[in-house]
């Protein structure tokens, strides 16, 4: 017998008659066989030669068991846990809504029949991620927010994960829209990032819902409504304003980093 495996003689003797072997040897061998597939293969190869009756019985049992084993193998379809470790379970309808809204805005822009000089897509783009971020982290929209708030993962990392998941949908959607209407990428991307970061940064003070409402109201009042009323693009969305948006995005991101440990964002106060 080698130091690692049982010798063929021992296995063969065991097969002929376990009673003839010393009890401690049988015990040690069986213990080894349980954990060693190589020796089990030796055993079954020898058994085919020495004891065909046992092997045919074993084959019968396997034939009977196999259908049942394959049946239990097909477990019910599972929602992938990986997806929801990024996107909040409540955001899916909101993300679909965002896709629809940006598609319609793009369509109107391309047709240019109703909008004239202005680009609806550019006017709406900064609002879209704000909506989705709110949906991902608003106690009013997330039924499980109360238990989520008491878990260790509730905190800035989870908020950022959910924001990234939102942007992963919003950015490609707007990319297609921007390509169709011929807008520059930076023209919608920078305002988008600025409003998203500002929502989260203000959210650490007021809570995300209030921050999102305030920012959306501000956007609608200062930019969206005047632009629609006067039918021309506001200065803020012209290419010359891009450095300002970049600065705002950087400022809001810095504010968010500074306030990353404050809990206000994470405490749904109903």
């Amino acid at each position, binding site marked *: 017998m080698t130091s690692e495996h049982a010798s063929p003689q021992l296995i063969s003797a065991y097969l002929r008659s376990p009673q003839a072997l010393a009890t401690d040897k049988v015990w040690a061998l069986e213990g080894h066989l349980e954990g060693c597939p190589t020796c089990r293969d030796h055993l079954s190869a020898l058994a085919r030669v020495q004891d065909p009756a046992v092997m045919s019985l074993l084959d019968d049992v396997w034939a009977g068991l196999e259908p049942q084993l394959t049946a239990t193998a097909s477990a019910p379809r599972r929602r992938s*846990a990986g997806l929801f470790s990024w996107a909040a379970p*409540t955001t899916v309808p909101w993300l679909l809504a965002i896709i629809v809204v940006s598609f319609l805005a793009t369509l109107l822009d391309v047709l240019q029949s109703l909008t004239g000089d202005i680009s609806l897509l550019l006017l709406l783009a900064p609002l879209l991620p704000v909506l989705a971020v709110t949906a991902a982290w608003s106690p009013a929209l997330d039924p499980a*927010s109360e238990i989520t708030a*008491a878990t*260790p*993962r509730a905190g800035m990392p989870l908020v950022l994960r959910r924001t990234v998941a939102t942007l992963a949908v919003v950015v490609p959607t707007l990319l297609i829209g921007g390509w169709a209407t011929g807008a520059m990428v930076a023209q919608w991307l920078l305002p988008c990032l600025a409003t998203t970061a500002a929502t989260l940064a203000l959210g650490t003070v007021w809570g995300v819902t209030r921050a999102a409402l305030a920012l959306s109201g501000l956007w609608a009042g200062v930019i969206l409504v005047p632009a629609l009323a006067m039918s021309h693009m506001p200065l803020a969305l012209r290419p010359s304003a891009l450095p300002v948006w970049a600065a705002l995005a950087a400022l809001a991101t810095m504010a968010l980093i500074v306030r990353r440990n404050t809990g206000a964002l994470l*405490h749904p*106060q109903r």
Partner: protein
Amino acid sequence: MKTFVGASELAPKTYAWEIDAKGLSVRAGRRRAVDGIDLRLGTGVHGLLGPNGAGKTTLIRALATVLRPAGGSLHMLGHAVGDAGDQRAVRRAIGYLPQEFGYYRRFTVREFVEYMAWLKEVPKKEIPGAVQRAVERVGLADRADDRMKSLSGGMVRRVGIAQALVNDPRILLLDEPTVGLDPAQRLRFRELLKSLADETCVVVSTHLVEDVAAACTDVILFADGRLVFQGTPRELEAIGGPEDIGGSPLDRGYSALLASTDREAGTW
């Protein structure tokens, strides 16, 4: 399968009480719903009794680290709980079932409890086993792959209990867990509580005095945000006299203590 006892399980605990509050105040909106209470709770099942609006839910939400204390100090498992600092260590050891248990209707029971286990930072390898154990403990193993929206109210409540248990918490906070359970389920729930009492600090808020009599090692009576009584169910029984209202000794003790506190506007 081999299971090992982790170092954290063998380490001696460095705190005297699982929950230790000194002068704790918590606001609910503008109101001070918990008003400067001193509370020390160790392992065991602690029944939190009190009339509606006494501040039970606010206290439990503060213990669950959802609400921040407005005053005083709160130590849980030896860690200070408050505005600053890292609450992850405490939160990992908490199980919480809120009064209004919100859930995702399209998730199956298993998916939901798995999601909660992920949020509670249960190690990825242990999640399937922990979820199965939690679901079996509340007797929902045969419904584990059904969607939440197909469950009855009592079953949803039991999923709530399962998600609270999934991380083997050392502090378990249950806000009105027996609402919606039928009498047989309530009995089984009490058995579950008793089985947890040796190792876990369980805080159960309820207004059913018989729940307390059957399953609790300790009673905390709460009125108008203040602690009226803390002791064993026996001690509470001893307080009630024959002239007090109630069908059982415990009921009489309860009403004797509440009658002696000042009544405020809004009580019935």
